[in-house]
């Protein structure tokens, strides 16, 4: 029941680092710096995934997010960069403070909900086979694949449709009107 000291330490360091780099995403003026800070945040969150035992998801997170998506982001940021310097001028000045106030209210409300729900024990154990037993028996990736293709085969197929629609959408937007 009691967490050991190494896990607590890793959790604390990861929590501080991920929150600090996440603040960097919205605080940097330059969009390239924000993108790099977001890559750092994604790495830290992937480390959280590793700590939670989701190895496949952690690897996919680094490959897809830090690899593919962020390269796309950086590409677009550098493509649109000349105008980004002179932006952020004529915003309403009270908006930032109102936003920070609302953020504090939101994080307080979420924390209150989490503590009241988790401590009241209203979270129920699911009825499926124990994940840890499957992982022990067959390995991490095997457990993931079994769960994906047994219980979630239909969402998996719908995902492919979504990707096709996204590709067609990007092609339509990228086409030069002739």
């Amino acid at each position, binding site marked *: 029941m009691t967490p*050991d000291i190494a896990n607590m330490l890793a959790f604390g360091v990861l929590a501080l680092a991920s929150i600090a780099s996440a603040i960097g995403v919205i605080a940097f003026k330059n969009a390239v710096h924000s993108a790099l800070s977001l890559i750092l945040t994604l790495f830290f969150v992937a480390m959280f995934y590793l700590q*939670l035992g989701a190895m496949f998801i952690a690897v*996919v997170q680094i490959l897809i997010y830090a690899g593919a*998506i962020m390269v796309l*982001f950086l590409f*677009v940021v550098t493509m649109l960069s000349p105008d980004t310097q002179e932006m952020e001028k004529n915003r309403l000045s009270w908006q930032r403070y109102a*936003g920070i106030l*609302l953020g504090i209210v939101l994080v307080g409300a979420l924390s209150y909900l*989490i503590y009241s729900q988790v401590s009241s024990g209203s979270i129920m154990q699911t009825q499926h086979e124990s994940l840890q037993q499957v992982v022990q028996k067959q390995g991490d990736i095997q457990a993931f694949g079994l769960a994906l293709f047994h219980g979630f085969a239909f969402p998996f197929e719908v995902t492919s449709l979504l990707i096709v629609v996204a590709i067609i959408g990007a092609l339509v937007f990228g086409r030069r009107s002739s």
Partner: protein
Amino acid sequence: MPAVVNLPPLSAYLVVSAILFTIGVLGVIIRRNPLIVFMSIELMLNAVNLSFLAFSRFLDSADGQMFVFVVLTVAAAEVVVGLAIIVTIFRTRRNIDVDEMNMLRG
């Protein structure tokens, strides 16, 4: 709720997830650069993924990992279409301030 040995409590992960989500919300509210707004949306998606995986671990079920898998795919599709829209807007208007975008037609 089953106790998971050696890890910090579930609520600790959920609070980190809530803080990351709130930072994402703040980014959407405060910033005017649509690229940074997009990055904040990615941050929110990641925060939700973190809470999904924490629940998956602490409830000892693989369902949370499936949800995260689908969310990752949706995020990739969303980024592709969203960035294509931003590039198109930049091409037609030479300006990408979200306050200036108030028309659906070019």
